[in-house]
């Protein structure tokens, strides 16, 4: 059986260095207290690139046959459906909790609409 997956060691060292840089970048996002939409964008971008590098180079997915790559990468997309449904539901529950379980300090002072409670 031919083992066609031989790459120079330098490739792994380069990816290693790149992963270090990306990790350092995502740590700096926290260190410099980047907030808001920029924070989420940066975190997700660095996360995506790190995951892609590990899966494609270290796990050799870039050199596998398409049948195997599809079998590995497509099923986890189901998780996106789960995440979407959970997020929608969580949004609803959060609203319901805000309506029915008012924090003790705020309870009794005003209702949700700002009017004094009976």
């Amino acid at each position, binding site marked *: 059986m031919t083992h066609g997956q031989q790459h120079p060691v330098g490739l*792994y060292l380069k*990816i*290693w260095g790149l992963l270090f840089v990306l990790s350092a970048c*995502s740590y700096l996002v926290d260190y410099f207290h980047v907030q808001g939409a920029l924070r*989420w964008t940066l975190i997700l971008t660095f996360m995506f690139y790190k995951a892609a590098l590990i*899966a494609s180079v270290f796990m050799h997915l870039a050199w596998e046959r398409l049948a195997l790559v599809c079998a590995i990468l497509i*099923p*986890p997309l189901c998780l996106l459906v789960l995440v979407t449904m959970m997020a929608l539901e969580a949004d609803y529950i959060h609203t319901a*909790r805000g309506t029915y379980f008012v924090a003790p300090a705020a309870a009794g002072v005003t209702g949700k609409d700002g009017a004094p409670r009976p």
Partner: protein
Amino acid sequence: MSDSTSSPTSSSGVYGLAADWSGDREAFKVPWGKAMMWVFLLSDTFVFGIFLSGYMAVRMTTAEPWPNPSEVFALQLGATRLPLILIAIMTFVLISSSGTMAMAVNFAGRGDRVRAAALMLATAALGAAFVGMQAFEWTKLIVSEGIRPWGNPLGAAQFGACFFMITGFHGLHVSVGVIYLTTVAVRLLGHRHSDGPSPDNGHLRDADRVEIAGLYWHFVDLVWVFIFAFFYLW
């Protein structure tokens, strides 16, 4: 489908089941052990995916403020208080272990068993260091911060449950990986004749065995990338 055109070998019942699965067809042109490892990793992807989406739902629904991980995991080093520094070091250690593992796979593919085994043992040592730092982190959180799975003094009670479940399950994977890599490395050093390049008689070659162990280890690193982003940085 199930009409009279069926071949004489297609029996029914348990024999049919065995015949179907042992049929000489393969979809994935990789060693069987590698395909099976990918199947396992796929199932593990769902385990961690469900943990993380459960954490997302819990964090979105809680009415109390979520404890700020940047402050919870800060460490006092000398005069400065560095946010999240231990987690950053753990991340670098795990990435380094992935790098040594990738090179071990590379050397095993070239037939350099000694270097491959040495790099795998280095990987296992880095993994053990990771677990050690995680034990330190857990101790600090439980003993000095008073964080419990059912509540904590910092905010939302669900923080502890999510933290201990997700990082605990990941730490378990790292610990198992350390044992697994050590076993494969020791076997590689005590190379048996039947482990060498073999024809397709069902035995895995040395290089395949190392590559399969490598897939597991890189997966553990991959999961940490997501935990780092979603739990510690979010």
